[in-house]
């Protein structure tokens, strides 16, 4: 029956008709909005302190072989106790939620959705345009931040970054955008599901807090419940560790921090536990080639991108099935 309906109203032409104007308008709205300014200031305030402290520390380092520029991101200064990427891990979801939590339901509330859809614009294009515009805004802010950090590093360290460092830094940007994309998709999903912007924001923030505060404890509780009472061998211990890691990886924040660790700390060989037998003969501290680092964190990157697409698809399906009243 529905199939018949669907075929009856099967549209003509590309589903992306009108994508361009929506994308441009949304981008313009985002970039000129006060909220965007506030969020950017927020990020800078959070990021500036760790970066400044790490640069102070790194200026005393005289080791040409270490990945000096990458250590701006990963170094955990003593007086701050949080590295730049740890700050980003925390702040990127907030920024993405801020960009996406009211993208659809505010149009409902202002009763502009039906007006927009009366134009030659498909719903698909509207949602995708809103999502990609949010992602582009986020990417612009992030690239600006990244350039500020690298620029400050250039001025204060006085050495140019090597090609490998730049490549790893760009990889970090891609991962960060994908991480932001996941949270943007989640917040848009809630903005589609709930008509009230407050509810949507609450749900998004609630999920964020859940993953940050509650999930690590729930995961360890599950693991300790599932683990045998007595661990007999190293393999069993490794299996339990693997299980704990697997549960933790359901949180996008874990995926992000692991991916960033692999990219920005080239000496990372494995993200899981390493058996002593595997350590034998290994030259510790030797950096992995870039392609090997990428292969190491490839599941994480894949997970983030695929998660983003799947959540967006869910939001899309819900949005398509909703009734838009004038």
């Amino acid at each position, binding site marked *: 029956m529905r199939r018949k309906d669907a075929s009856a109203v099967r549209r003509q032409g590309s589903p992306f008709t009108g994508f361009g104007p929506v994308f441009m308008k949304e981008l313009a709205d985002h970039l000129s909005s006060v909220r965007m300014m506030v969020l950017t200031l927020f990020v800078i305030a959070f990021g500036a302190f760790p970066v400044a402290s790490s640069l102070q520390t790194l200026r005393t380092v005289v080791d040409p072989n270490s990945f000096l520029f990458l250590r701006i991101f990963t170094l955990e200064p003593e007086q701050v106790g949080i590295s730049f990427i740890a700050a980003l891990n925390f702040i990127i979801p907030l920024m993405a939620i801020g960009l996406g939590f009211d993208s659809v339901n505010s149009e409902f509330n202002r009763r502009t959705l039906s007006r927009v859809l009366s134009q030659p614009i498909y*719903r698909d294009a509207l949602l995708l345009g809103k999502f990609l515009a949010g992602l582009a805004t986020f990417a612009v802010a992030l690239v600006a931040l990244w350039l500020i950090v690298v620029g400050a590093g250039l001025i204060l360290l006085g050495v140019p970054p090597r090609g490998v460092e730049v490549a790893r830094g760009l990889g970090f940007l891609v991962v960060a955008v994908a991480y932001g994309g996941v949270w943007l998709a989640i917040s848009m999903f809630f903005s589609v599901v709930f008509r009230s912007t407050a509810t949507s924001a609450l749900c998004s923030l609630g999920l964020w807090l859940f993953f940050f505060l509650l999930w690590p404890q729930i995961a360890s509780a599950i693991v300790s419940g599932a683990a045998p009472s007595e661990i007999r061998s190293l393999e069993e211990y490794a299996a339990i560790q693997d299980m704990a890691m697997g549960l933790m990886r359901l949180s996008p924040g874990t995926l992000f921090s692991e991916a960033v660790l692999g990219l920005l700390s080239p000496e990372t060989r494995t993200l899981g536990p390493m058996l002593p037998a595997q350590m034998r003969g290994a030259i510790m501290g*030797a950096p992995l080639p870039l392609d090997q680092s990428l292969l190491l964190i490839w*599941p994480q990157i894949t997970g983030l991108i695929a998660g983003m697409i799947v959540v967006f698809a869910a939001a899309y399906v819900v949005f398509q099935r909703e009734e838009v009243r004038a």
Partner: protein
Amino acid sequence: MRRLLALLLFLFVAPVAGVQAQGDPPGLKGLFLLTDYPSQTVRAGEVTTIRVKVNNAGQMPEPLALALTGVPAGWKIDMLGGGQPVGAVMVGVNQDVAVQLRVEVPKDAPTGAQTVTLTAKGPMQQASLPLTLTVGTEAPAKLSLKSRLPSLRGTPRSAFEYTLTVGNDSGKDLTVALAAQGPANFQSTFTEGFGSNEISSIPIEAGQTKDIKLKVTPPRDVKAGDYPVLVKVAAEGATAEMRVTLQVSGQGRLALSTKDGRLSGEAEIGRTSSYTLVLTNDGTAPVDEVELSGTVPANWKIEFNPKSIASIAPGDRKEAQVLVTPADKAVAGDYMASFRASARGEQSSADFRITVTTSTLWGIAGIGIIAVALLVLLGAVARFGRR
């Protein structure tokens, strides 16, 4: 009558002699001038010291003036007592006083015997000592050099140690300079018999011999063969020389490297990678029965093809393949492996850095997951897309 006289004399003397026999050599009384060699040789232009003892046997001590007579013209003879020039001595009962005569013979003194008489004269008694001093020509310095084992055999890496005996056959002490002359790049050093200090000369007293050690180190790349080393000792115009021989037998020397000299390589987890090892013999003799072995991290597999090489001629090189398989559970990164080649008495090893890479299969799987997610989205668009 004569018998009676003798008896009387005996009766008179015997008690006195018996009293003397308690502390002193019996019988002899008087003042004596003594020396070990009353007739000796002196050399023109040199100083000779003659020791003389003044002995007082059972006489009253009294000052004795010393005098020399018969000193040839140009000669200078000083009388020294306790290091000072003296003119008289006073000797206690049954005691000696040593006097040295420092005889300075002029350079142009003619050869021949001269008699000098030393007299010691006191108010009561006197003694005299004639000394015959013969001016002789100088005995020429003479050295001898001997070795018990003049020919040694060894490899280019061994040290050849010869024990040499240097003798000073002349009449005076000599400082002997040592020298050894070998083929180019042969290093030779002299040491004292049981010492470790390198020496270039050694003092030898007259008539004595000393053992010295000569150590010859041939250059490492010396060809097999016999090499002579000429040892020369010299002192004051006297020389002695002898020839010692090094019989150098050839020795092989193994060097292990890779074809392009690079000691690093890549290996994929669970897959066999092969590297080409090059074995070179830099030595002078063939290297036989070369066995290849290696150390790799735990659970890795290592194989050599061929496992052993029968012989490598000098200057030749042989290639061998080494097949390394990282463990299935290895983690990506750099590992250290070492390869060894060992033959009889010869060994060479090389540390090899292996970068373990992971399979890109999982990367492709990841792209597949993203593709599936996109397909889900496209499916949703196709299913739910509407005006």
